Each structure stands twice: as C-alpha cells, then as structure tokens.
C-alpha cells in the first residue's frame, strides 16, 4: 500500500480517462507483468470502502510512473475522475498474475474490447520488445469510446471495429477471427467484457489457437484473503473456484469455464 502522487489525468474518450501516477513499486527494481492490476482507493471516505481494480496500461520506467485507463461506470470511478494532478492516491499493487510471454512464439494476436484494451498496450510493448509480431484487434461501442489505438499501432498492426461502424468496420471483434486470419499466430491474448471473452474462447478453441483470458470479477481485497473474486476453472478434470486476484486475473483460456 502506497500513497502516490497523480502526475497527469486527462479525458481520452467519452467518460474515459487516462490517469498517470507515481508507481507504488520501483519499476526499475521489480518490473511488472502486463495484465497485472492496481487496486485503488478512490477516496478515504467510508462511502467507498473497497478499492477499485484497474489494469496496468503503461509503465514509464525512467520516471517511475504507471498509467491506468478507466471508464466512469459507477459512483467510485466518477469520484476517481474528480481527482486532480498533484492529489494523492492510495494504491496497492501491481497485483495478480499477468500475461506470460512465450520465448518460442513468433506472432501474437491481441484481442480487446472496450476498457479491456488498456492492459494490451503494455503487453504489446513487451511482445514487440521481445521481437514478436503483434497484431491487435480491438472493438469499441463507437468512435467516442475508441481509445489507445495509436499506442497499440506503435507496436504492430491494429484492426478496429465498432458496434455502430463509426470507426473501422461495423461489428464485433469476433467477426475478425476467421480461421485464415488466426492461423498466422502462435497465441492469443484477450481482455474485455465477459460475453466477448466467452465468444473469443469458443471460436479460437475451434481454430486450435492457444491463448489467455483476463477475467473480471468483483474484488474485495485484491490480495487473496477474502475469496470474493473467484471464477470457475477446470484443472485435472476438476471444476474449482479460484481467486482471480491472486491466481489471475489472467488465465490460460483452456481452463476457464463460463456458466
């Protein structure tokens, strides 16, 4: 747990903000995995007792800064959006297990939906740095909700779709996931709303592409002590509830069960 200063805070879309603050850990010394999250108290008031999990989107190792990108969903993220540059933030993390990189992979397919896109930015950076080909498919509600496209484009090709066709092709990310298209990649990495993840998992299982899903469950502690955030997985033929904060939020796609 650290009290850190807000470095910048700007609107980058419809009710979507990019928030940069001093890293609660020394980035140089410890390093972070893409897909890990920061667990943030939006105020010290008991009105918002629990922390809010937000994915690590970017790291600036030189200045020891981290960036999250979030959408105002409810009262807590609304309150967060009122924070000013220079204000102090109570941040825990980075927490959890992120996306693993595979040494032998040559090309990776990244799939993101809405505010599931942020963790893919740091992932794309690390993949590209490791010499992999990166192609990202991102889907948004509309033009106004489209975020982080230029950031992603710095690391590889980006395909954009929107629900209303106001940017890129009209449709869903899954429309892009043809067998032909997918066969060029060694692995996929997805983050987005649960229905999207479920559809992606189904399609890419058919295409026999292995991958990872970053799951979203309501979190209490974020560190594995409340057992509130579980998701069902199948391991050794056994169904079990595992903590997404501690064992996840990123899981191998083949073990994740949706019900």
């Amino acid at each position, binding site marked *: 747990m650290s009290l850190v200063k807000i470095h910048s805070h700007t609107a980058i879309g419809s009710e979507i903000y990019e928030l940069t603050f001093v890293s609660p850990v020394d980035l140089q010394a410890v390093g972070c995995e893409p897909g890990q999250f920061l667990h943030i108290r939006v105020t010290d008031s008991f009105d918002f007792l629990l922390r809010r999990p937000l994915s690590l989107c970017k790291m600036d190792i030189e200045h020891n800064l981290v960036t999250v990108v979030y959408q105002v969903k409810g009262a807590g993220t609304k309150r967060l959006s009122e924070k000013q540059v220079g204000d102090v933030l109570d941040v825990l993390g980075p927490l959890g297990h992120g996306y693993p990189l595979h040494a032998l992979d040559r090309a990776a397919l990244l799939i993101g939906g809405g505010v599931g896109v942020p963790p893919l930015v740091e992932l794309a950076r690390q993949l590209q740095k490791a010499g992999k080909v990166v192609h990202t498919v991102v889907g948004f509600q509309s033009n106004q909700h489209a975020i982080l496209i230029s950031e992603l484009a710095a690391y590889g090709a980006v395909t954009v779709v929107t629900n209303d066709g106001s940017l890129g092709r009209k449709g869903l990310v899954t429309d892009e996931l043809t067998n032909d298209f997918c066969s060029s990649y060694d692995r996929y990495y997805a983050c987005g709303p649960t229905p999207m993840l479920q559809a992606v998992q189904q399609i890419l299982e058919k295409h026999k592409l292995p991958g990872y899903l970053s799951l979203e469950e309501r979190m209490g502690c974020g560190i594995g002590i409340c057992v509130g955030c579980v998701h069902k997985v199948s391991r050794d033929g056994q169904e079990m*509830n595992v903590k997404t904060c501690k064992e996840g939020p990123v899981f191998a796609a083949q073990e994740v069960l949706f019900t």
Partner: protein
Amino acid sequence: MTGQENTANRELPYRAIRNVDLTVPFLDMNFKNPVMPASGCFSFGREMAALYDLNRLGAIVVKATTLDERQGNKTPRLAETAAGMLNSIGLQNPGVERVMSEELPYLTQFNQLPVIVNVAGTAIEDYVMVVQRLSDMDSITAIELNISCPNVKCGGIQFGTDPAMAQSMIRAIKEVARMPVIVKLSPNVTDIVQMAVACEEAGADALSLINTLIGMQIDVEHKRPLLANGVGGLSGPAVKPVAVRMVYEVTSAVSIPVIGMGGIMTGVDAIEFLMAGASAVQVGTANFVDPYACIRIIDELGAWCDAHGVRAVTELIGAAKA
C-alpha cells in the same frame, strides 16, 4: 515476480510503545496484544505473511473450515454498501483434511502466533467430525465455532439463533475438543444475551461476536439482487454500533471472556470494544481496505494508551461500564 511480494518491503514502521503493556490474558494463555484478524478476512495467513511478520499479531483466526471441500456461492459474492460491504462467500474452503495438510503447517513457522481455527458445517455431526480431526493437531490454540454464518442455506444459521440448538452443538463439541472452544454469535437475533448465556451454560470457554448482519442490495439497473446469492452478510464500520452494543450487553451477563468485532478500522474503534467489555478484538473488513490494518491498529492502540497514561491495555477492559 508479482506485486504482493514487493509490497512486503513497505510495511509501516513498527512503533514499539515502550511504556504500555499490550498483553491480555485469554483463557489460560497470554496474547501479546488483543488484536487478531477475523475469520474469512485473512484466509489462512499465507498471503498476509508476504506483507508483514504474523508474529506481531495477538493471534490469527483462519477461514471457516468444513468437513468437506466447498466451492462456495456463485459470483458476484461482494457488494459495497454505505460504510460497509456485503459478502456471500458461502464458506469456500478446501475441507479439514487439506486445511490440516496444506494450510495449518505453514503457520507453525510463526512460533509466537496462537492459531484459532474457525469451524463451520451444516449438521452437528459435521462440526463434531471437524473438531475431532483438528484435535489431533497440537499447534491449534482454540476452535472458534461458527454457528452463525448467514451465507449457507439450511446451514449453521439455525444453531446461531436457537439457544437450545446452540447448546446441543456446544455440548457435543466439548466432548471431543482437546482445545478451548470459542463460540461465535450471530447478531441476527432478538436477544443476544439469551444466546450468550445459553452458550456459557453449555460449556463455551469464550464467545466472539458479532458475525455479519443479514442484508441485501438491489441492482436497480438490472432489477435484481446484486449478489448472486440474494442475501449476504453485512460488515464494516456501518455495523459497529450494533456490535459494540451487543458486546456491552453480553459482557454484562456472562463471565467467560468475549472477543469483540464488527467494523473495527482504527485503534480507537478497538478501544471502544475493549471499554465495552471485550477481552480482545478481531479485525475483519479493515484488512481488505488496508492490508496493514491489524498491525496499524496494534500501533494505534499502544499510542493511544501511551498518550492517555494507560500503562496496561487490560485497564481498558470494561472501563465504560458504570
């Protein structure tokens, strides 16, 4: 490398309060201070041990343990409420065998840490079997009988609200338990004193209270209860006045020691419970808000005593009674 380990370096400076004796007698033991994490809010201690030395705690109370492994309720299991939260975990745990083989041995490395195991179940026989099994393990300081979990259907809740059923349960447990038995009471009763007295009569060595109040939140956008389970247990600062009242009433009626809890976030909150008559306190929800809550509260307790000329924390116990 993940973040949890990293944060271990940033624990609060341990302020040794030299002039204050924080030890409290509890049953035939001495706890080095009256603060312990509440069951279900600290898992089995492993994650927390990455953050600070568990030997600093007065004791540890681990997650509810049942006879068989349980997967708990569907998600969402958590909701935030005004100054509180609802949970409907539903006793997810690996079952007593794996708790004994995989979890409890880990804690033996903390040689100054009394370990209290919270036990839950559905029928008296379940509880008896779990306690029997746990009695084989010398490293367990006490059992906390969770007869009050609101999150298991046709589960323990009955025992927690019916004095006669609680007594049958306690008598059965006392026959097999080789360690002291703390009975954890539900606040969802008309007469908490009646329950407490019944438990004392039946042989409880100590009491702990309160477990969570039963609550519900409606997700108005989706027109349904937010928790998948419908209802959940309310905890956090919101419930503190109810908890303090119950501790005050119960400690006036029984002579066995009482562990107080419900909404403790700070040292002063802990002092409220001690002054109301509790011999020790447990800290639950606060651990989620601030992972260092327990040791911060110990420090704040010492600092308050120091500033108020209190030499021994035991002076505070029951101090608010006329």
